[in-house]
């Protein structure tokens, strides 16, 4: 067995040292009734070459983003990932390490996380950040836990244009944890202050908004924070980190907790995971943050070094009174995000955002100017928008796929889209554009659709 280095003669020596005659004796404490007295019904072992062949074949049954011109976004974006990211994250000194419990031999991971935390603070305009949580959705529920415990209130307002997966996850947790989700109807546009004020109540622990919203719209956060705070609630904002390079930072806008999906920062799509949830907050919430935090300190000789800190918040110390149950997080994805940000720097990240935005607007203009349909929403957007084609959606859809285009997300097929939102975007396609899309590809899609609409 190429992964098990104990030979049969060594096994004999080891059994002798233990003082038993067979490995089986070591399992004597497992009662016979609980034993599996047959081999597991699993496929027979494959050699590496067979395995690779099998997996290549499976992988070959999926169309990867290199093989199709994709306009799918909806929370995960197909940005170019610089080659260096995979090379660095792929160093096994990083990826075969555990959580840095023994700090003195884990300075690499620890410093990298400390730097990551700093990068997230800089990006969001917040004071402190943790070492990552699972994803944006669980980041939101962790943020809500803070809000509930700070405010001791039990209701949370979700804008209806928050990613439906995030809201769905929140609903699951809310049921389990006994708090209530209230929906704020936006119709995909700006938050109306009056309706927000109406929604806010004595029991509102937090308001959860998304910037941009699920439909790509950019909302005015500044107007919102004061209202939320006046009601004694916390403002939780879920952001697209790439767009933060051009948008007013949520910190500036008065958010209390900023979370988001870190995938766009140098992480592959991976069919939706692993990605990472980043988590940043105002300084006053530091000791309430979920999960791991790295701090800078010194050693007994005065050298700078890094450790996991404030562990008294965490489950392995505080157990049922911990700020969260999270243990393993998404460290390697956070590392990728840090490497990505370090490579791009402020200019690079801004260019990625600007190119994506400009190209999205070019595509939207082309599509509308050519009379192929209209945008479902009137407000400003970033690199994603809802387009309602005039022609039959099914027809466009299948023809585009056949021609090598994945034209976006069909909103009619999104499970759990809030009805208030569904209404305004009926028949729409959520189309995302990244810097990877070339003008030729955009023009290609437009001409294809022109052709189709002439034909159909």
């Amino acid at each position, binding site marked *: 067995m190429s*992964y098990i*280095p*104990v030979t049969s003669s060594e096994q004999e020596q080891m059994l002798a040292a*233990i003082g038993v005659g067979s490995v089986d004796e070591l399992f004597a404490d497992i*009662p016979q009734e609980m*034993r599996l007295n047959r081999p597991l*019904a*699993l496929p027979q072992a*494959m050699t*590496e070459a067979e*395995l690779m062949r099998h997996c290549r074949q499976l*992988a*070959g049954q*999926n169309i990867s983003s290199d093989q199709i011109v994709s306009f799918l976004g909806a*929370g995960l974006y*197909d940005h170019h990932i610089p080659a260096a990211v995979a*090379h660095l994250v792929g*160093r*096994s000194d990083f990826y*075969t390490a*555990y959580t840095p419990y*023994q700090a*003195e031999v884990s*300075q690499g*991971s620890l*410093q990298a*996380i400390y*730097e990551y*935390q700093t990068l997230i603070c800089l990006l969001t305009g917040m004071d402190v950040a943790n070492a990552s949580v*699972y*994803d944006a959705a669980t980041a939101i529920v962790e943020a809500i836990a803070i809000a509930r415990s700070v405010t001791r209130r039990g209701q949370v307002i979700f804008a209806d244009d928050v990613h439906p*997966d995030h809201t769905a996850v929140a609903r*699951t947790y809310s049921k*389990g944890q006994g708090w209530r989700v209230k929906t704020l109807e936006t119709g995909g546009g700006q938050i109306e202050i009056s309706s927000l004020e109406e929604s806010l109540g004595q029991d509102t622990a937090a308001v959860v908004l998304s910037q941009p919203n699920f439909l790509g719209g950019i909302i005015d956060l500044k107007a919102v924070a004061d209202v939320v705070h006046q009601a004694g609630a916390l403002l939780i904002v879920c952001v697209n980190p790439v767009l933060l390079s051009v948008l*007013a930072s949520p910190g500036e806008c008065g958010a209390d907790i900023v979370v988001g*999906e870190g995938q766009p920062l140098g992480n*592959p*799509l991976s069919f939706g995971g692993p990605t990472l949830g980043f988590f940043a907050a105002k300084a006053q919430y530091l000791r309430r943050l979920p999960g791991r935090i790295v701090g800078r*300190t010194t050693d007994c*000789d005065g*050298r700078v*070094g890094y450790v996991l800190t*404030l*562990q008294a918040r965490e489950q392995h110390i505080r*157990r049922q009174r*911990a700020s969260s*149950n999270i243990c*393993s997080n*998404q460290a390697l*994805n956070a590392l990728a995000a840090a490497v990505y940000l370090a490579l791009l*720097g*402020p*200019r*690079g990240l801004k*260019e990625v955002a*600007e*190119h994506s935005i400009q190209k999205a*607007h070019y595509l939207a203009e082309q599509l509308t100017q050519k009379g192929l349909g209209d945008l479902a929403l009137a407000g400003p957007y970033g690199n994603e928008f809802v387009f309602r084609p005039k022609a039959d959606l099914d027809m466009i859809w299948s023809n585009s796929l056949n021609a090598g285009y*994945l034209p976006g997300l069909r909103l009619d097929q999104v499970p759990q889209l809030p009805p208030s939102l569904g209404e305004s975007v009926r028949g729409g396609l959520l189309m995302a554009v990244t*810097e990877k899309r070339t003008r030729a590809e955009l023009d290609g899609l437009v001409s294809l659709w022109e052709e189709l609409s002439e034909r159909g």
Partner: protein
Amino acid sequence: MNVADQYFPTIFELSEPEKSGYQLPDLDVPVHELTELIPSPLLRTKPLPLPELTEPEVVRHYTGLSRRNHAVDVGFYPLGSCTMKYNPKVNEDIASLPGFASVHPYQPEETVQGMLQLIHSLEQMLCEISGLQACTLQPAAGAHGELTGLFIIQAYHKDRGEGNERTQIIVPDSAHGTNPASAAMCGYEVVEVPSDDRGGIDVAALRQLVGPKTAGLMLTNPNTLGLFDENTQVIADVVHEAGGLLYYDGANANAILGISRPGDMGFDIVHFNLHKTFSTPHGGGGPGSGPICVSDDLEKFLPVPRTICTETDYRLKYDYPKSIGKVKNYYGNIGVAVRAYAYILSMGPEGLRRVSETAVLNANYVLARLKGAFSVPFDRFCKHEFVLSGKKQAALGARTIDMAKRMLDYGVHAPTIYFPLVVEEALMVEPTETESKRTLDQFSEIMLQIAKEAEENPELLQNAPHTTVVRRLDETKAARKPDVRYSGRKSDG
């Protein structure tokens, strides 16, 4: 002047205006002023204060950092409860195939049939390994699996009309911290059941604790002492009879693959840590993956979407009215699942059994070698890991933390320490099956040497480590005056 003494600057200190490690082609579409597209009040006014570096500098920074890490590929890593086994390289290659890594979760199902097939097959394989009937890959890690399982327990009781009554989750005092934390996060009252003198659950105490309030019991088996609970059957019966469900924390499943199945032990819900038992790398803290398997009865509560196999293809199905809903965006940490799938296929049924047999053999071998020098709280054969107590050495002035730090000087990682809480000065050693006898012997000798040092020169241990890139770090200072983001001060910690 020692290289090891050199301050390793943060990436922020390497920044220089103008630099970038990235370039975009010129924008090839007509350009608008950004303010024409997005009203300027919504736009950033201050420049983004990220560091500016070129690619060579970034590469050198992170390569340098990586060499300041211990890791499985670098040396022995007997961190108890973490199953730091070897992470096969081919699995990394497979996970990075574009057909797996560059696939969007919202692609039409017909464009991701290979992915869905893989998910479905892995779910089935995990069911077979667990002895249960249905599976979801959605939870992102072990703790998340626990939470998901607890949501299901809640849903189950609610469905039976007992949602309000069953408010307690029973957890052994030896349990991992995530167990009570997950239960609490789910709104449950946590009731702790003590261990008996064999290291298992005190069954008499358990009988006292169960009742109409009991929603369920969470058990790691073998438990965090590395011991299989000899009363598993009785425990299962007691909890079931009281109307509770049994949750199996599969963090220790490396001891039982192909030997005994949680389903056959009587458990209703199991989570696996793919990043432990199924060889996916820990990534320096994550990502993990914590799929759960459940019994037939509980299947209807599993999160959506579920991956189903129709006569013609694979589909994602949302229509489960009793489902707890979603616990994570999209479908889980699928990239991790891909590696676990590859691992199971490369091991096969005999291989998996050999994994557990060897993991248990290795642990017992090291235990046998160390027994004389350290206090052993429970004198039994262990399973895949064992717990020593450092109390003898602590009495001499060398606490467990000191011994752990000393190990770093010898080039091995320390075991898990001070856990489980039921053992004084605990040292929890999990060698895993991917270590050779040579390594186990070396480790044993290091431990014996340290035990000797504890007798002869405890200060040597109190001041350890001596040879690492930094020496013992001041955790108290770190917690008292938290510095959790770089703020421009150079090297004054």
